[in-house]
């Protein structure tokens, strides 16, 4: 298409400076992690991997990475298993009540984390779930549901409802319709939702301050303490590890979008 409304050179220069501003902090982390100094700085003489060695031999950092992964995997599972049928049900029924359900599912995105953090902190004190896998997985899973509901609903918007009616009228049970007709079509949406939910848990840094303290120390939690106390170069390595997973997730999502649009 002929885009004759081309942006002028001034607009383009401004736009690219903003984009550079967006990339600046992200691009500085990797060089910092290669420093040959004992403090956080750019490498003075030659890049060194010494802090990577420290990270991958430190029990504290490895434990945190492992805990973060376990929590992210299980909370993603919880979000996908409960969010997907919910989106399908809302799509099929589409009544006033399901509209209300959709709003309920969006709550965790709208409500500031800090407000919810107080409530769940209080509840977990009472139920004795502070600092437990179950407690954190429930919280990350429930707050991950919106991402699954949104992505699955978006895929369902392009799905011909008559296919489902056809299957049902030919005698397929609800379960068979779900497994053989609906699920294959919304798979890309479920996969996207799972990626979002995983990253949501992997990055989550506010709720964890309230609901975990000693036994469980996720990667964001350890980074938080590191920033407050001492900025040691291993932090830059940890930041790179976190970024690596985010970038893989973004690549996965972009790939899914491309296959979906084809």
């Amino acid at each position, binding site marked *: 298409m002929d885009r*004759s409304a081309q942006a002028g050179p001034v*607009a383009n220069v401004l736009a690219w400076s903003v984009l550079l501003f967006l990339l600046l902090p*992200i691009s500085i982390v990797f060089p910092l992690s290669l420093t040959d100094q004992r403090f956080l700085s750019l490498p003075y003489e030659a890049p060194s991997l010494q802090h990577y060695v420290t990270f991958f031999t430190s029990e504290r950092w490895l434990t945190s990475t492992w805990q973060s992964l376990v929590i992210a995997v299980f909370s993603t599972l919880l979000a996908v298993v*409960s969010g997907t049928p919910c989106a399908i049900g809302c799509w099929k029924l589409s009544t006033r009540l399901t509209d209300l359900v959709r709003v309920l599912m969006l709550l965790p995105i709208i*409500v500031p984390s800090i407000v919810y953090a107080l409530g769940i902190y209080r509840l977990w004190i009472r139920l004795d779930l502070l600092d437990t896998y179950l407690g954190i997985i429930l919280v990350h899973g429930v707050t991950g549901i919106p991402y699954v509901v949104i992505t699955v609903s978006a895929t369902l918007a392009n799905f*011909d409802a008559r296919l489902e009616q056809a299957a049902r*009228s030919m005698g397929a049970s609800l379960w068979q319709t779900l497994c053989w007709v609906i699920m294959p079509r919304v798979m890309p949406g479920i996969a996207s939702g799972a990626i979002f939910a995983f990253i949501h848990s992997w990055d989550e840094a506010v709720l964890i301050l309230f609901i975990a303290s000693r036994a469980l120390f996720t990667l964001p939690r350890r980074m938080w303490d590191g920033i407050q106390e001492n900025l040691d170069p291993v932090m830059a390595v940890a930041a790179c590890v976190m970024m690596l997973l985010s970038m893989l997730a973004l690549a996965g999502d972009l790939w899914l979008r491309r296959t979906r649009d084809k």
Partner: protein
Amino acid sequence: MATLATAFPRTLPQTRMLGASFSWWLLIAPAVILMLAFYAFPLAEVLWISVTEPQPGFGNYERLLTSAALQRVWTTTLRICVITTAITLVAGYVVAYALVSAPPRLQRWMFVCVLLPLWISVLVRAFAWVTLLRSQGVVNQALLSLGVIDQPLRLIWNEFGIAVGMVHYMIPYAVLPLYASMRDIDPRLVPAARGLGATRLEAFRRVFLPLTLPGIVAATVLVFIFSLGFYVTPAILGGGRTLMVAEYIKLQILDLIRWGVGTMMATTLLVAVVVVLAIFARIVDFRRLFGSRH
């Protein structure tokens, strides 16, 4: 599809009974139960505590009117939010404008630049800003060695640092709705205005800009409500010296264990967010702005 359409016209007789719709409700139930038990209920309890502790009544809310400290927290928060939103909007508008008129291949790269930060942990980004902006940080070191300054600039642990970090976080959230509204504009309109004798600026101001108004409103609302309750970046880049409302709440609960004041501020924050949303949900269709074109 044509055969399917004739076989199953949209006016398919309603064979579903209450029983059939009941099994669909069963699919919805687990998520609803989880959300009510572990999200809505604890959230409601926050509101409840704010009027029951330490004594029943609106004592906590009265402090909003009498305590200078609380008022300072709110004015600081609002000031930083307004500044952040204004800068973010201008920056986001420029990017969205360049994005919508870029050739497809370049557009893909620009999109990656916008989406990449969105996917990276807010904590990692705040950490990156600390390493860049602190007095022994990369920016100050570079400026010192170039001889531009002879004393490190104070770029962090103040409102400037908070604003930089927040603007950086919010720009993608402004670009996406702005881009969505610009994409739908007929690309022939601006050239038409130019052909009719409008200058470049006039065509932009009188044709393009008004058409992007829904996008502008949506981006403003989104950025503003996200800024209001933002915790991580202000807490780290403010270094405890500039208190915004989210960090104030955290201090009340975890450090001072004053549940009454903490939950009162949290409730006020929630009400502020909901009010802003309620006003603008009537004006903008948020669902349309997030990808789905239906």
